[in-house]
């Protein structure tokens, strides 16, 4: 039988395309859950690589504080947030085959490539399971060219809930809005929401009717199928009862949604929705795929005419195009932090209990062997992670060690993530979290 927790996880794994998933803000269910501090994690995966020179302050070659450093131009928007920032260079992803993209392997810490299905779950999914409950533990959004986002509004390239079980990311903000805030929508979105709600109710009835005469063992198994609809429908009904709360956080649907001038209009709208899902307490884990884990992507709205693969063939440092993209990313990171700082939580704000992991699904550049996989962390995750510094590691430990650290910071007693002893002999000389980043 699916319990509520299972259902939420499974629902998160597949908040796919067309479902009107029902969601309830975290604080509205908090009374029935444990007293654990709500925490959240955001993964921001920019494609084409993250050259360390575009984030490490000039002249800084060894681990040190960022207090007196000046952040490089591409990430200068983060200057006011330096005390929340931890720049890490010197992790590796040699085992992930990251040239062009490690795809699921970037967040999974295993070999990935174009067309290769995930071989295990990814860290974002694993964290979503262990962080304090929210209604939709995991939300993935993907930003790409407008043509790709329109034609393929959901794709799965970065996140997975297990071997062969990809998690889809959402790229059409109209669909995502309907999924998250359909209950408080108006106009066409409202009609879509109502039609979909009716459909799912009907499907539940039809499915349930066909389960009544099954032999007992099959009935139990089939009931999990029926119960999936029951839960989806039940939660939606409950969500409708808290629409006032959601209204406070839901973004306004404007012309960027319906008549985008550039793809960046949709990127911004998707980010708004992701932020709303976090601030309203709907989700605890947000994965953002800028370039959707592949080797293409477009940012014409930033005045960048080149697109896709060519961007990856350019050196990133001092490249005006890459400075624009990285600055755009940084502004997005700032928007997330500002939004989370504006919501009180415990004795502080939501941001105090959050970590943003900014990196690339391509390690440091497009054609790379993954010998260096730079990462920026923003936020100390309720005091569990060090901030305000730059750490230079020796390229011995893999990104899996970072993911182990995040699981530790989330309270999990694990020594490794997706790395068995045999692989570790070659790719990870140590076990446990990265002591350099844990408080």
């Amino acid at each position: 039988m699916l319990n509520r927790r299972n259902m939420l996880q499974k629902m998160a794994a597949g908040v796919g395309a067309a479902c009107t998933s029902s969601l309830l803000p975290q604080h509205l269910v908090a009374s029935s859950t444990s007293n654990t501090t709500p925490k959240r994690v955001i993964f921001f995966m920019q494609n084409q690589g993250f050259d360390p020179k575009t984030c490490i302050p000039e002249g800084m070659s060894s681990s040190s504080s960022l207090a007196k450093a000046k952040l490089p131009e591409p990430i200068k928007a983060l200057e006011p947030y330096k005390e929340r920032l931890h720049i890490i260079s010197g992790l590796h992803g040699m085992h992930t085959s990251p040239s062009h993209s490690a795809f699921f392997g970037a967040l999974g810490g295993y070999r990935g490539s174009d067309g290769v299905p995930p071989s295990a779950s990814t860290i974002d999914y694993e964290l979503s399971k262990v962080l304090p409950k929210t209604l939709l533990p995991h939300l993935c959004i993907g930003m790409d060219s407008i043509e790709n986002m329109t034609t393929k509004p959901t794709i799965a390239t970065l996140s997975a809930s297990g071997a062969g079980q990809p998690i889809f990311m959402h790229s059409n903000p109209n669909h995502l809005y309907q999924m998250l805030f359909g209950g408080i929508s108006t106009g066409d979105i409202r009609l879509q929401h109502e039609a979909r709600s009716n459909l799912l109710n009907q499907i539940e009835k039809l499915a349930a009717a066909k389960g009544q005469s099954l032999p007992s063992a099959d009935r139990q198994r089939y009931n999990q199928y029926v119960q999936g609809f029951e839960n989806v429908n039940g939660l939606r009904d409950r969500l409708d009862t808290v629409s006032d709360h959601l209204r406070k956080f839901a973004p306004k649907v404007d012309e960027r949604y319906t008549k985008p001038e550039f793809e960046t209009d949709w990127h911004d709208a998707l980010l708004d929705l992701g932020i709303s899902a976090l601030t309203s307490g709907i989700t605890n884990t947000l994965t953002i795929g800028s370039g959707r884990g592949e080797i293409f992507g477009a940012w014409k709205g930033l005045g960048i005419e080149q697109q896709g693969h060519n961007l990856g063939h350019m050196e990133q440092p001092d490249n005006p195009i890459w400075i624009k993209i990285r600055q755009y990313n940084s502004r997005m990171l700032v928007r997330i932090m500002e939004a989370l700082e504006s919501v009180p939580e415990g004795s502080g704000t939501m941001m105090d209990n959050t970590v943003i992991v900014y990196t690339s699904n391509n390690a440091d550049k497009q054609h790379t062997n993954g010998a260096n996989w730079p990462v920026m962390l923003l936020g100390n995750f309720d005091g569990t992670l060090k901030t305000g510094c730059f750490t230079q590691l020796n390229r011995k430990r893999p990104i899996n060690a970072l993911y182990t650290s995040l699981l530790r910071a989330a309270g999990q007693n694990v020594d490794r993530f997706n790395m068995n002893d045999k692989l570790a002999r070659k790719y990870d000389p140590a076990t446990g979290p990265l002591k350099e980043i844990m408080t």
Partner: protein
Amino acid sequence: MNKITSLLALMLSWSVLPVAIAETYTPGQKVNKNFSQLAKPFLATHCADCHGETEPEGNLSLHNLGPVDEVNVGIWQAVWAQVTLKEMPPKDEDQPKVVERLQFSDWIVGELSRVMRDKGGFHAHLDPNKGNFVDHDLLFGKLPDNIKLAPTSSPARIWRVTPQEHITRLNELINREPDFDPSKPGLRTHGDTVPTNHGGELKLYFGTDRIIRWQGGTVAYATAVKSVPVVLSSARDHGLENYPDFYTVNSAESTQILGTAADIIRYMANGPLSIAKPYQITDDPRSIADKMKGDIRGLPTSLVYSTKVMRPLTPVYDLMHEEGNSDERLQAAVNYLFEALTFRPPSQKESNEYLTVVKQSIEKLGKKDGAVLGLSSIFLDRDALFRPELVEKGKPDQQGRVMLQDWELGLAVNHALRYIKPDKELRKAIVEGRMRSKADVKREIERMLADDSIRKPRILRFFREYFDYDRGGYICKDSKALADTGASNRGTSHYRAMFDATASTDRLIELILQEDRDVLKQLLTTDKVIATRSDNVYFGKQRSKKEILASVAGAKKAAAEAAKKKAAELEAWKKANPGKKPPKSKKQNKRRQPNVNHKVSQAKLKGPKIYARVSRRSFGNGSMKPERILATVPEDQRLGILSHPSWLVSHSDAMDNHAILRGRWVRERLLGGGIPDVPITVDAMLPDEPHNTLRDRMRVTRKTYCWTCHQKMDPLGLPFEMYNHAGLYRELELNKPVNTTGEIIDSGDPKLDGKVANAIEMIRKLAESKRTEQVFVRHAFRFWMGRNETLNDAPVLQDAYHAYKDSGGSMKALLVSLLTSDAFLYRTRKDPALFEEN
């Protein structure tokens, strides 16, 4: 347990056992005894001496083992495995009588099922990996007189469709696959499964048959084209993957299916227009050159589609392209989709229910969006995702069995061979009431088996699951370790080669099935291989250091001689043409010069052209190609499928061979032996000693505690050390002659037991064995019945074996026998009595 207690217990057991033995035993019937009456005396008689209170063997004391409860289920499960597999009592001890052992085993299963009922249930005995726990000699030999078999049947059930079936079913809605071409029998045709793509991913592709141009090469194409990955999942990657009780459909999958359904319906209605701009649909790409300017690689707008309609035009198309939305049109679309997705027509009630759903959606959203949404609901009908065999109609016989009939029987027969809906003749037979008897089934099975144009992907699926040769592309290799084998570690070439190898092995199996003589023996001993160019390396021989140095030196010498010759020619030319400027030598295209692989003596595979089944174009110009050759393997180096890289790499790991996995495969799939689960106390790690051979490092498995099980696997896997972990033949390992010896022990056939020099000798022996053929039949039974065999299935298995044997090893004969057996035809709705509460 001290001796006095043991003695008392023994005396107690004497008082009870004769009664038990005198009874008639019928497999599957409830054992009407409690712990004190049955289990306690058994333990006291057969276990207590060694597993007593003090210094118990294996550190396992059964002294205080009471009735099965939540706490001791682990111990009872271990006892069940050891006793059922006849591992315990040890061979040199007194053995329980046959029925005594069977009753004890049944009692434990019954008790574990009862205790675990609310805790996820006890399923170990139902797992295909435990299929061999049923004694082979009892299945194929003479039964003791006090065992009385009951007529067999399978449980009534619903059977979730597999990922391959589901994607093939959906593919039928939007893609038209070519008809079978007898002159090119290996090419993918209508009715074949949708294959995995260049990277091993199972995906549904939209409109690839109409793409006539795209910008960019491989990744750009893969990104631009519309595809959706398979939604249903399968948690198993070795052995039989899909018994009916394995899977359900979770809400994540349901929601994804709903999304995919909308994409499919739109494509059914509008074809590429649902995923492209109108100008992209033209037969003259030059005419839209102005719109295709600049770098648009990876964008859907970089594709040009031909104007030729390729998809099936169905009532869904009619509905969406005609004015209005009459009930007639709507119902036609509902009925069409329902049958396309469930393989049977809807009842009037079902049709009306979905019509209502569609109309409600249209009312809300208008026809265009409402019809798409409403029709999507049919994709989530129970019967679109689960295949029912419920025998709700029909009168049970004395044993409570009901024979499948009409649509349920027709679809069971269809499913036994096919992934797509019944062909016209089968459908007609069902509708006309000619699918109600064993003779009906025989007629249809024989008809379908005789017709090559009726594709039967499920047969090939059985061989994939039986042999497990399709995992090679998914085994992540360490880059250096891969390079050391002699195979290329550049990019994804090795993984691509492995996916190609899987397709090649598929085709080789089909060729052997085409002959249909001594099928298993042929599979095990064929000298044929379907090969791509890269197989010259994979079927080659790994060179020794000395040979590599010689090869490098030879290449250098050849290069030097070539340069010298060139210089001499130039000199001669200058002499002949004094004062003239010599012509420029032709530029050599460096990229076209083949890289010399000094590490491998390549095989020289030659033979006629042949085709293998590959994915639709998924990776632009780098997509998998169907063209292959049918060649003969290097003599004395290879023999049958188990010596092919597809199987060898599937049973390897990142760094090396996986001798234990290979040995286990031989033990279970050829010898019919069972291996108990690894005790949780075992740290199953080999030492990290790069300078020692795998055989040396496996010394840890020879510790007494491990060896009990490992002696059944390791000596069967180590003969394959004649190949490295990329599947290349080798004579040396770590610069010393490789040790390829092994041994068959406890096979159940004394003629088989004994030492072997290498894998080839072992395979030759096994291929001649009657037992091996019987074990093969057991696996075929499991695959087609969707469950493990019980003793009650002994007659079915024996008939199937004889059908196979008497026909000269015909797979077709084996299938006809299995698919007309009671185990296939009959269902029982009642839960087995075995699991009733004791």
